[in-house]
């Protein structure tokens, strides 16, 4: 077996290749592929074992065909997951990967990303994994802003354990564990993420490959933690959960497609070619609401600003959707702001320490200042 041996004179000379300079932009630290790649390069030899028709297939295909666009060396890409149907994802990617334990993927990925800035680290998780058992890790990863891309497959049900309600299931949902209807109020994952100081928050849908890939692109380019909620159909235990958003006709009224710098319009086209409905700010309450856009009213329609320093408007957008009917569900990038990235700052502190005090001298450390000598 071919092996390389680390150098026992200190970690600076360790076997991890050249440690990247800190302060550089995250994606620039990840080595590029030698030549062009195709989706096939990212397919592992493992047989995919989701239920036929599961939305996960579409997401996998979208990710595999998107990755070549980034042009990263495959060996520097890592997918980390927790437990659940979606968490099988890493097995199907021909990159490095870890299928870990329930809820802990963000924590594990944080350690990896913080210690290896030359890697592009992706977390794949589900609504139960990320929001129930792993809720704590998710919110702390977001506030820390570690360089992670978190793909949250939300199917609003527990699939792998065969159909219990999840923390995103609607109130009153009849499942195996709630025969008389669920009593829990659901989380809105994007509201939660914004409350947790997330610097990048987006939503997309499994069946809309183009949109999904555009969101992945924005997430990959983002510095820090990116949370992408992907509505995913579980055709076995919660089939049709997002049909309202997928059916061409109902989607017109239900889906609000957000684009940075564009007025927030949706619905059947008005005379100006944009949607007949618009999102405006209520002067009295400051809240957002949906109106029918009249010719004179177009100025009032809110222009989407994903870069706004304050998350309040993004939060208000997440609250437009009705948890039961999904009407007025915004998709796209709700927030994409720049703020200090944890692993960059961690590397900076290491560099700073060396600059200020010199590289570590083990002999001097062990000796300390307060010694005495016993002569032989």
């Amino acid at each position: 077996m071919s092996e390389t041996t680390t150098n026992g004179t200190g970690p600076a000379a360790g076997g991890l290749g050249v440690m990247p300079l800190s302060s550089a932009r995250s994606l620039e630290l990840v080595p590029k592929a030698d030549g062009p790649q195709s989706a096939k390069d990212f397919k592992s030899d493992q047989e995919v074992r989701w239920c036929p028709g599961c939305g996960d297939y579409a997401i996998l295909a979208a990710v595999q065909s998107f990755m070549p666009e980034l042009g990263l060396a495959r060996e520097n890409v890592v997918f980390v997951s927790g437990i659940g149907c979606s968490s099988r994802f890493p097995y199907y990617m021909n990159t490095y990967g870890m299928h870990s334990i329930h809820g802990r993927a963000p924590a594990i990925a944080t350690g990896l990303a913080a210690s290896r800035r030359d890697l592009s680290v992706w977390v794949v998780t589900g609504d139960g994994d990320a929001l129930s058992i792993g809720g704590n890790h998710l919110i702390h990863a977001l506030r820390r802003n570690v360089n992670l891309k978190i793909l949250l497959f939300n199917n609003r049900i527990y699939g792998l354990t065969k159909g219990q309600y999840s923390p995103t299931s609607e109130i009153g949902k009849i499942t195996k564990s709630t025969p008389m209807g669920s009593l829990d109020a659901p989380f809105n994952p994007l509201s939660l993420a914004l409350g947790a100081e997330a610097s990048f928050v987006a939503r997309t849908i499994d069946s809309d490959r183009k949109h999904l890939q555009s969101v992945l692109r924005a997430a990959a380019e983002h510095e820090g933690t990116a949370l992408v909620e992907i509505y995913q159909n579980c055709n076995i235990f919660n089939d049709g959960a997002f049909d309202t958003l997928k059916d061409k006709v109902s989607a017109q009224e239900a889906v609000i497609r957000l684009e940075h710098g564009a007025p927030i319009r949706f619905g059947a086209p008005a005379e100006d070619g944009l949607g007949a409905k618009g999102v405006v700010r209520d002067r009295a309450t400051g809240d957002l609401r949906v109106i029918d856009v009249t010719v004179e009213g177009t100025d009032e329609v809110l222009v989407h600003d994903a870069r706004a320093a304050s998350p309040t408007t993004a939060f208000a957008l997440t609250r437009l959707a009705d948890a039961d009917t999904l009407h007025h569900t915004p998709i796209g990038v709700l927030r994409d702001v720049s703020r200090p990235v944890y692993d960059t700052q961690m590397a900076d502190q290491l560099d700073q320490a060396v600059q200020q005090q010199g590289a570590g001298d083990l002999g001097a450390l062990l000796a300390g200042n307060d010694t005495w000598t016993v002569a032989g």
Partner: protein
Amino acid sequence: MTSQVSSPIDEEHDPAVAGTREVPGTAGGQRAPGKETRRLERVIIRFAGDSGDGMQLTGDRFTSETASFGNDLSTLPNFPAEIRAPAGTLPGVSSFQLHFADHDILTPGDAPDVLVAMNPAALKANIADLPRGAEVIVNTDEFTKRALQKVGYPASPLEDGSLDGYSVHQVPLTTLTLEALKGSGLARRDAERAKNMFALGLLSWMYHRPTESTEAFLRTKFARKPEIAEANITAYRAGWNFGETTEDFAVSYEVAPAAAAFPPGTYRNISGNLALAYGLVSASVRSGLPLFLGSYPITPASDILHELSRHKRFGVRTFQAEDEIAAIGAALGAAFGGSLAVTTTSGPGVALKSETIGLAVSLELPLLVVDIQRGGPSTGLPTKTEQADLLQAMHGRNGEAPVPVVAPATPADCFDAALEAARIATVYRTPVILLSDGYLANGSEPWRIPEVSELPDLRVRFASGPNHTKADGTQEFWPYLRDPETLARPWAVPGTPGLEHRIGGIEKQDGTGNISYDPANHDLMVRTRQAKVDGIAVPDVVVDDPDGPDGPDGTRTLVLGWGSTYGPITAAVRRLRRAGGKVAQAHLRHLNPFPANLGRVLSGYERVVVPEMNLGQLAQMLRAKYLVDVVSYNQVTGLPFKAEQLARAIAELGGVSDLDAAGELDALGEQGRSKGQERTDV
């Protein structure tokens, strides 16, 4: 009148170890003529006061002075879990015990010769531990009616004769400190706070301690507040001068450096947690792997997090996680990426980390889990010591999840134990649990500083290319193809081209690492993981048995311990041997796997006594594995064993019948003092 009588002979000196020592000058001014100086072989001092009185700092300083003077020493800090328990109450008492000697010692001592009591609560909480005749220095300023009532003294013990058996020094420490700081311009409150330094100065005078280091320390500590630094130094010097001038202190004591106790070398004083942190940094340097610590604050482990966070220039990354689970999760992620990954915690934290330790067993990645044990169950006694996590370390996971377990024996040994744990983790690609405890963590002792080149070579090999040839001749990488010798799987870190692979907690096929639910494969993998841990090379356990077990007059009794009981057990064994008893002693550093010769050692003795600070966890493991009828001796008080108590227990349980006389054992106990025949203690 004093109880501190020195004995002419010292039976503890190990003639094999010899050396001369350069003694730094004892500063602090000229000593007045006419005051008597006596030589002692050893002294046990306990500083006790309110949590806010700075007793830990006082003890630390006295320890530092004593270490630099060259005595052998051992310390026992003892403090409440509350940061500031109500002032003046019994639960708020904080203490620091220090044992120092002109010879090699092993424990912080059973009973103090001197108690410094800063208030009535400190006196009440500690007086029962003092033998009659011991010296007591009390701060009389604090013995007010209210303070006495608070702790339930109906009358002042300074006046009601209850302290008649002791040599009591009544010193108005607060008043004297305030007087000394009159011109300093400090507010009364601030000036009062320097009274611990007054007490330290007095004790430093009494025991001829060098004073420069404390003055330098105070200047550095209060560098930003020079007036506070000066006030503390003034109080410290005032305490020293008070001893010199007052008639109440007629005698001062010298305890010569323990020249013979130390092999030649350069020494420093070190606590267990500091030694452990240094061991981890050393393991990082010697392995060439960057150190990554994922940790969540918990007593008594947090000091390791604090310490390691100061060593960024060694490339050390410290990550304070949102919880215990994230702390080990992040460490495991870093291990996957090729770091020397560590998580530090105490028992409750290990409970939370169990599932991730199991994942590390399944992933077969190197990971150090450091458990600084404390009193349990649940929150238990956060600041007290215990050894009751052994079975948790061995078995606290779902499924068959064997984990190697290593335990340091003394504070300084935490350094070597950390290196050993790192060796096992990296060579065998496995999580390793390092079981220290509160006593080792906070206790300290002199440590011979090793040369970097003496430290073990921990370089590791990362996989760099394929390791398997398919039938069609193409090469591929199998993440679970093992080294035939160690059974370790390859460590292939992300960033290595061609070795892309996926690992996870689901059972995997032998070799390929692909998901496998095959019954026979699972059986094989479970047995292979067990065989890997069972096969870890660990050194044989060494038996100290001067008489040997053979022959009609051979030793019949073995005392076997593990972890921090090393000091008290060794001290107890020395006492028994001095009384003519034949006792063999062995101490385990490796709890999993056990040393290969352990079974043979156990069967060589008629009786095996196992003292533990739990209800018999090692005993249970020994009985299960070796079918040996070991005898447990247990204590779970949150405090370490006392040597005398242990000596009696071993004699009784171990059937050590060949003692010179029944009375001889007594002479080794505290009663020895009242006869004026101080026997050298350990």
